[in-house]
């Protein structure tokens, strides 16, 4: 149920974000979801892509610092309080969300949320027990 996300260190300089995205597009890597966390001097680009291994290697070849880690991807009802119902499950189980970002898939009317949890195993367990729709790698690849 864990999905691999890659993060890239992007210095806050002209053209750096574009360079990272160009690198991926040249390698014909599709970006499924993306978020950019920003500080004054740099940002952290987080990506769910079609081919992690390839993405990582082309970015590293271009001197980017890349890290891979586990996140969960959850389908959330695209209606008021949709996200809240999921967060409630996690809060009740005392599981911290480090960050999250959302996107809308093509095939579904639901919103899709990428979550980085403090304790991913427990998170998956409680979400499953509450019948939340955790997306698989295969599913995401076909989005």
């Amino acid at each position, binding site marked *: 149920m864990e999905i691999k*996300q890659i*993060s890239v*260190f*992007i*210095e806050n300089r002209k053209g*750096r974000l574009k360079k990272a995205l160009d690198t991926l597009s040249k390698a014909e890597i599709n970006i499924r979801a993306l978020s950019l*966390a920003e*500080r004054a*001097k*740099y940002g*952290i680009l*987080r990506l769910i892509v079609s081919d992690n291994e390839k993405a990582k290697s082309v970015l590293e070849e271009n*001197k*980017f*610092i*890349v*890290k891979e*880690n586990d996140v969960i991807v959850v389908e959330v009802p695209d209606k008021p309080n949709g996200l809240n119902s999921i967060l409630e499950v996690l809060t009740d189980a005392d599981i911290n969300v*480090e*960050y999250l970002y959302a996107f809308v898939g093509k095939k579904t009317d639901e919103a899709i949320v990428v979550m*980085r949890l403090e304790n991913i195993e427990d998170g998956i367990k409680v979400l499953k027990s509450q019948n939340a729709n955790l997306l698989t790698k295969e599913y995401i690849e076909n989005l």
Partner: protein
Amino acid sequence: MVWNKEAECMEREEKEKLQLKLLKETLKKAYENVPFYKKRFDEVGIKVEDIQSLKDIEKLPFTTKTDLREAYPFGMFAVPEEEIIEIHTSSGTTGKPTVSGYTKKDLEIWSEVSARAITMALGTKNDKIQNCYGYGLFTGGLGIHYGTHKVGATIVPISAGNTKRQIEVMKDFQSTILTCTPSYALYLAEVLEKEGLSPEEISLKSGIFGAEMWTEEMRDELEKRLGIVALNIYGLTEIIGPGVAQECPAKTGLHISDDHFYPEIIDIKTHQALGEGEKGELVLTTLTRDGMPIIRFRTKDITALRKDKCECGRTLVRMDRITGRSDDMLKIRGVIVFPSQIERALLKIEGLSPNYQIIVSRPKYLDELEVRVEASTELFSDEMKKMEEIENKIANTINKEIGLRVNVTLAEPETLPRSEGKAVRVLDLRKFD
């Protein structure tokens, strides 16, 4: 007002005669009592008798900060320890500091030159001097203290820090002269404004500012905002402390008490003596100190000398405001920092490449130090929280080494200047020229 007209307004010819006589005495004292100098002079084959004119001083070897450090703690003393009645050290934050030992006579000399400085800065026995230089091993506090006593003014020995109290004391005691670093004075001005106090409501008339480089623009700002005459003081522990040189209200350079300290300017590359008005490194020789005579000390401070008589009537040699250093030493908020110290701290952190850049700036009044380091897989996380932890860890390690808070910024790999030259590693954005 001139504190000591005879000494400060002496004709140059007479002064030079006196300097030569004192120089010979100093060299004899140093050679006979300090093994370091005996060895140095013998090595280059120079005898005290070879020095027959002031120009001959150029034949003598230099003394560097490293020499003094190697003599730690009391290797440079020229008198038995029981004759030393006070000890100070330079503000080295790591490694061994340099030690300065004073006999009773040395303290009298220090009081004398400090009294001259205070008088140049409009101080009389009717003044109250709020001395915000630090008291302790640092020479700043006590140097001004002794001079104030000598002048007969009232010393307010408040020492550094505690801005709220400084302002309260300034108001309630009606201090007339302020002594501190220029950047702290600007900070005080800002706090005074915040508290709604105008220059008319405080009694300051002048300021004796030093221990860091500053500019004419800062002077204008200080004079306007505090309603004072802002004057530059210069001194260094190795030579005696504050009072080696001081500006008078003519503001045409700092008068060096050259009957006690003999100044030279040398080319920073060739080490050859430079003429009047030429910019180079200041070299100082003590002419009267007994406890610790110092011959041709390389101050690393960049300035030029002027010998013409000042409009104030003094004939003391003047030095220009210091505009730089001939080494890579940085003075940040009055604290000495060498880039190598930061490098040493960075090497302790796993995953950190030794490529770094130091950026010094003065966004408002206080110096800020930013250290840029290259991120690496070990020093990167997808979580902002962890990134902050990484930056804090680096900042703390540097803090332990240099005693100052720094801002750490992570940069992409291979983007910082490589170690081809030291200059590119330090970007000093403060303007001193």
